[in-house]
């Protein structure tokens, strides 16, 4: 059984939507904004501290398929990212503790715009399913072109004291052929 299938079987049952403006909703939006700040300001170790040890972090491929085959437009075999806590920490270590992570040295200038946040209860009182839109702009060197990465995040957040830990993130990208030379940045 693949790692992705295991997650699907262990995933919590998603329940009712939590209204916009509810206390837990506001706290979750605050977490997502804070997370965007950590990533955009390259505080990667601090971001790493918000990840759950049982993290699964994936970015499926997309394919252009007819209207009748939209379910097959999301590919979860080969993906763009297929990581767990240990491998994400390895990526952070490469970016922060070596002097030769050239794909992000000099680093990109990025803006993560997070919007359309919907929060759902799950069958576990301390875990919330969160759907949000991500629009990420990436500028490198003196290149005039800005890479734009857009997609939908499907997150699972676990309450951790006053904050949250990211347990699961799947980013459904909109491009079948990505317009950025690599994903050396976290989505």
């Amino acid at each position, binding site marked *: *059984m*693949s*790692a992705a299938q295991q997650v699907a079987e262990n995933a919590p049952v998603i329940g009712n939507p939590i209204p916009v403006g509810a206390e837990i909703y506001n706290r979750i939006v605050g977490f997502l904004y804070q997370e965007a700040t950590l990533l955009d300001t390259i505080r990667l170790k601090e971001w790493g501290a918000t990840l759950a040890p049982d993290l699964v972090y994936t*970015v499926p*491929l997309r*394919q*252009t*398929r*007819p209207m009748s*085959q939209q379910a097959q437009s999301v*590919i979860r*075999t*080969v*993906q*763009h*990212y*297929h*990581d767990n806590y240990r*491998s994400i920490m*390895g*990526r952070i*270590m*490469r970016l922060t*503790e*070596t*002097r*030769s*992570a*050239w*794909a992000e040295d000099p680093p990109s200038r990025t803006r993560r715009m997070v919007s359309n946040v919907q929060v759902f209860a799950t069958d576990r009182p301390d875990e919330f399913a969160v759907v949000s839109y991500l629009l990420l702009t990436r500028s*490198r*060197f003196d*290149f005039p*072109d800005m890479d734009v990465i857009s997609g939908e995040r499907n997150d699972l957040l676990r309450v951790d004291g006053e904050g949250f830990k990211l347990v699961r993130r799947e980013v459904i990208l909109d491009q*079948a*052929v*990505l*317009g*950025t*030379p*690599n*994903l*050396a940045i976290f989505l």
Partner: protein
Amino acid sequence: MLTKASYTLADGTPLSDLVRVPTREVQMRALSDPEIYQLEMDRVFGKTWLLLGHESEVPNSGDFVVRDMGSDSVIVARAKDGNIHVSLNVCPHRGMRISTVDAGNTQIHKCIYHGWAFKPSGEFIGAPVEKECMHGKMMPKEDLGLPQARVTLYGGIIFATWDLEGPSFEEFLGDAKWYFDTLFERSDKGLEVLGPPQRFIVRANWKAAGEQSAADGYHTLTLHRWLGEVGNYSKSGDGGSADLSPEMYGVEVSSPHGHALRCIDLGRKIKKLSGLDPAELTVEQKLEALPPPGMTREMLPQLRKHLSEEQLEVMVSMPPQVGGIFPNVLFAFVYIPQADGSVLGLTLLHAYVPKGPDQLEFVNWVLAEKDAPQELKDRMLMQSIQLFGTSGMVEQDDSDTWPHMTLAAKGARGRRSTLKYQAVYETGAPAGWPGPGIVNEGFTKDDTQWHWWLYWNELMNAKA
């Protein structure tokens, strides 16, 4: 054979001046010039065999994927007779792209513009309003099919060429085939893809990636230096030295057709895994200690059925691990050290599809032996994604480098600078080396890449 070039670029430069044979230099403008790019589409991509995918992507009748041959879109489809056909994805009626999706299954490819229909084999079925004969009476139906490329399967990998009368794929591989067979034709059931390929755009000329794939070893020392700094490759205990140069000794195989293989010494890995001196071990014992990428010990008897004793000797001592198939393919059959001290083999294929003089599409297939257990395939898939392709910690540095070379090649002065391939082997093949071809041993040099450029030069200057 180099022929006397007759073609002159718009600014008066003879095409044959781009590659300076005596000093092993290439003019930088080759990496950006639109005029050169247009010539390449006919003279290189119109003549050579091109990687389009793997037959396991289209297992059933009617299955198809849409891919590119140079600047042309093609439909790669399995027909009712089981054969794979590669058809130009252009409706012969008014030039509409027939398939507008990436993949699917159909027995009828129908153009959405005027409804002309074609079989997976490219044969013309008919146009609407048959009784009014929409397709006209000037040409017979047989002449209204989709232009067919010549197709071959090699280890299940789909290659095609527009050069219908040119060399066979075997002739194209030449002496390099002996080595490629150890990668692609070594097991009973062969390889399969683990999913559709990753695809992304790099704002770089396809040759920046293509020539690096011709077994460039030097870039590893600097561009991939991090491998020596952290993680399972790092030289912990060696005073934190990030020196990767010990890995750069080996054997490099060049081809007159631009194919290249970097063969890397397995001795240290085998010693680490088995605790024994590789010189004292038989071929069998070495295979047991470290099976080839993606193979389990249970699968080892398959190797004997498909490969010669000489090929097995190379596989256990100095196997090809990275290299390229001209013009735009990179292969990786690599041994990746794991945290627990074991070694995980990975098998990948890339195509760098030209999308204009300063843009390429990076297409990355992740493969595994069909016979490998699912658990091994899953580990290979995850590790492949983490190291190679889109988010891969190794290749994200490569794809961030090529755009700078392409930009530099646009400068009024920069375009006249030259790429230099002046580190020349003086060794030849190691004593007793059993394989054919242009073989050199020792620390990595520029010969494989230089031979890549020589073949590019030959094709570009060949008489039409």
